[in-house]
């Protein structure tokens, strides 16, 4: 359930507002900073996944997904975190990245959606914090 009311920032439905509140309470400038940090490193972390999949390096692919996984907790997306965890666990069960084609496509699409949601939320936070200043 989202912690939305007229006096506070309203997170979109893709973000678990209670999860965010549990970590940062209502420190919106700090939340904005954390979202920015995630965005600053997102492309590099995603590139590591792409590269290691293309190079058929299963262990490095798993490590890359393991690394990006908790990122989604810091921006209130525990569902995406769980999807990364499921992919990471699958890496242990296969012998080659070829066996992960379908899961990989699903993972990339999940990451893309999450990335866009983080961008949108960050933009909203910037506006909110500016207007509140």
């Amino acid at each position: 359930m989202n912690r939305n009311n007229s006096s506070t920032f309203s997170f979109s439905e893709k973000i678990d507002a209670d999860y965010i509140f549990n970590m940062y309470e209502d420190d919106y400038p700090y939340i904005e900073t954390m979202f920015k940090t995630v965005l600053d490193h997102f492309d590099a972390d995603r590139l590591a996944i792409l590269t290691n999949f293309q190079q058929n390096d299963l262990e490095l692919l798993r490590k890359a997904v393991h690394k990006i996984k908790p990122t989604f907790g810091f921006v209130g997306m525990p569902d995406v975190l769980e999807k990364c965890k499921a992919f990471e666990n699958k890496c242990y069960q296969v012998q080659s990245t070829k066996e992960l084609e379908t899961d990989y496509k699903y993972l990339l699409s999940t990451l893309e959606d999450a990335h866009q949601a983080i961008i949108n939320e960050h933009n909203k936070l910037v506006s909110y914090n500016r207007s509140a200043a």
Partner: protein
Amino acid sequence: MKLSCIIVEDLQVAADYLKGCCEKSGRIEVKAHCTNVTEAINFLDTNSVDLIFLDVEIPGGQGFDVLDKIAYSPKVILTTSKTEYAYNGFEYNVTDFLKKPFSYQRFSDALKKIEATTTTSKNNDSNDDDHIFIKSDGKLVRLKNDDILYIESMGDYVKFVSAEKKYVALNTIKNLETKVNTRQFIKVHRSYIVNISKVDNIRENTLFVKGSEIPVSKACKAEVIRRFNII
């Protein structure tokens, strides 16, 4: 007094969050943020801290490799998103395990555990026992502190060296570091604890104890200089 710590973490947002938690607590000073095993070992070789926030899967190996390489035993809180590492954590005697991401409240609870164990350890430090009992050759042997020259690691065993005799016992330097009378003994290397009063002279990074040469590690050097009152 604030506890000093380092953060070993390759995920920037996680490191930033942890720094924020440390600042908010007002009880921890972050000395450094290292993103891989080598960086952490290099830092800890020349700096000593009270606490390490340690991620497990980091570039260059595993976080546990850092604990294997350093010469002293700071408190450790594991920070990882994989609970499977908790078991290894027990083997390394870590104080707590924070599953990323964690709330400030959870961080604060972990900190309380650290402070509780630090207090206990400080209380132990102040004991003035003039002897220790060791299990050697199937019996408990009483060794007077004054008779021990130094203690040397031999893998899973340690050797207690006195002027008269050597005793081998199943133990580790890491464990003994907190068990011996810390006013009388000092760890000078990951493999050696020496009786301060038995040191005849010091030359560069070597202590001379009744004919034996004991190396001093980089990580322990600052503490050795402080304890030996070198001016």
